[in-house]
């Protein structure tokens, strides 16, 4: 698969103040499985500033889970480096107690109650706040005394989230946390999450993955787009939106346009062209009508430029 256009917006763009500290900084992070035959993640360089809620978006198999597992120390990179809260992810309490990870299937011991989980975590974590977990779950009417296997999917996800928040981590990594939830449970889950981030007052950074940006649009202020095992976009959500436009105009030679800007994606219908463009300065050509993009447009544009399946999907949609 040939690499698509790649763009990494500096985290300081649009914020002339001193750059905030980085919760995550990776450099050329690469992970291969099966003795190098399968590349799950290729030369991934991303940064996430502290205190952000970052959406890690990408189609299934893009490497989202691999990246999250590398960041929390569950997997070792084949090459490249990762700095998470100024530490290299590793199997040490000093690192593990700072980072919370929630796997996609939200694994819990199904026969045990939430209360049992709280007590187990209390013995495994140095900064544990069990009362916080109990208060939060009681507030959501999640029973603490029933085996978690008997709870609904939404309740179970709340237990898993409350437990990982009980560690009082500085970084929370959530792998497809809302994928299996119904819309209401999804909303409740994200409400709990945003409330926790607000309470932490900048001391909690969250990265949550999804294959749909619409799931996370409302809560995230930072975006990482992975496709075909590579980073396509990484940066502040508002900056990314401001720097991209959809241009609609006659189907003509785009060479002059491309000298100044980057055409991410091009759709042609008859004599009319629709271009997704990353602007690197003011738009000079008055022949195009410029429209603002939504996060979803942006994500789909980049995805379809790299993933044939998404290009087809987009074509069908139009």
């Amino acid at each position, binding site marked *: 698969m040939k690499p698509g256009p790649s763009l990494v917006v500096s985290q300081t763009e649009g914020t002339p103040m001193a750059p905030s500290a980085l919760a995550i900084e990776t450099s050329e992070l690469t992970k291969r499985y099966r003795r190098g035959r399968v590349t799950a993640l290729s030369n991934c360089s991303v940064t996430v500033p502290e205190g952000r809620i970052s959406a890690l978006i990408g189609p299934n198999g893009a490497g989202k889970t691999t990246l999250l597992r590398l960041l929390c120390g569950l997997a070792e990179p084949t090459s490249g480096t990762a700095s998470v809260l100024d530490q290299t992810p590793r*199997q040490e309490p000093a690192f593990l107690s700072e980072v919370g990870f929630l796997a996609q299937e939200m694994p819990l011991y199904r026969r045990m109650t939430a209360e049992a989980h709280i007590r187990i975590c209390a013995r495994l974590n140095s900064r544990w706040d069990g009362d916080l977990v109990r208060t939060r779950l009681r507030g959501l009417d999640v029973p603490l005394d029933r085996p978690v296997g008997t709870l609904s999917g939404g309740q179970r996800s709340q237990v898993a989230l409350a437990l990982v928040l009980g560690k009082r981590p500085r970084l929370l990594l959530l792998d497809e946390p809302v994928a299996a939830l119904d819309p209401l449970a999804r909303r409740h889950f994200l409400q709990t999450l945003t409330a926790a981030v607000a309470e932490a007052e900048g001391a909690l950074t969250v990265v949550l993955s999804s294959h749909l940006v619409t799931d996370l649009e409302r809560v995230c202020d930072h975006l990482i787009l992975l496709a075909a095992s590579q980073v396509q976009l990484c940066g502040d959500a508002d900056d990314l939106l401001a720097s991209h436009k959809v241009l609609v105009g006659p189907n003509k030679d785009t060479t002059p346009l491309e000298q100044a800007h980057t055409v991410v994606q091009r759709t042609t219908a008859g004599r009319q062209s629709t271009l997704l463009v990353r602007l690197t300065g003011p738009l000079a050509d008055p022949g195009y009508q410029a429209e603002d993009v939504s996060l979803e447009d942006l994500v789909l544009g980049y995805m379809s430029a790299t993933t044939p399946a998404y290009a087809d999907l987009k074509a069908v949609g139009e």
Partner: protein
Amino acid sequence: MTYLVWRQYRLQWAIALALLAAIAVVEVIDGLHMASAWHSLQVACGTTAPTAGQGGGCLSQSIVSVVGNDFRILSVLVPAVLGILWGAPLIAHEMETGTTSFAWTQGTTRTRWLVAKVGYLMLAAVIWAGAASALVTWWSGPENAQRGDQFQSNYFNTQGIVPVGYAVVAMALGITAGVLIRRTVPAIAVTLAGYVALRAWFAEQIQFHLLPAVTTYTSLASTWSPGGISIGQGATVINAAGQNVGGSQFSTALYMPNGNPVATSYVPAACHQFLPSPIPPGGGNASPSLVSCLSKAGFRNVFSYQPGSRYWEFQGLETGIYVLMAAILLAVAFYAIRRRDA
């Protein structure tokens, strides 16, 4: 950590304890019955000889156990069952359900997590197997006394300390198979096959060969035979040239006072006059004159064996080897867990 293991395994421990209690009740009742039968037999025979061999024929009458050998077989299964039901799922089940990613991202190391799980399970295996073995050892007391031979595999392998070694290695095999295979059912299959193969191979090739066998020569006229277990050529007769003249593949055999056969084809010409005439088709007991003629010709009994006095030495050696194997298996499991991506 202790709390996690306790929460995960308290049900299994309760079940195991209940099973052990049930076995104990049966064995104690049956054991008391056998002990009193043995005592009655000693009284009836008018002897307090500790073993049947010393009491002459009288003490050899059977003392009936109600549960019999089935119970012995059952206790042989204990370690395999432990390894399969506890050991194999220990890690494999967590990997299958993904709870490793819960456990391995708490504020503790994988090594500590594994030490706790493996440590408590190993301890449980030792307690379980030790208790089962102690029960069987006590229960077998009268039978052991009567037989005077604890090397026979059903007896040696179910008593003393070797069952603890078996349980430890079965558990370690189960845990390591689970770590490497990551799936419970295949891990169980590998544990079962591996354990059975290991035990069979060990019993066949290693078990009583750990120490060099004792070789004893006796006169043909002697009725002595050693206790313990025969090894290598076992009990037979050799001629002056050291050639094995026992066995009866090529001709009929005549039996010496201690029961060893001598093939008639090996009887030297000088002793032919003492052969029965005609030689009965199935052979028969050698006449004293034939025995003395063969002795003069240099024939003698040879015994190659492990003496019964080495019982505890063998128990200790075998247990040690199994514990060492378990340690190696667990080292592999620890290495794999530390290196594994989850």
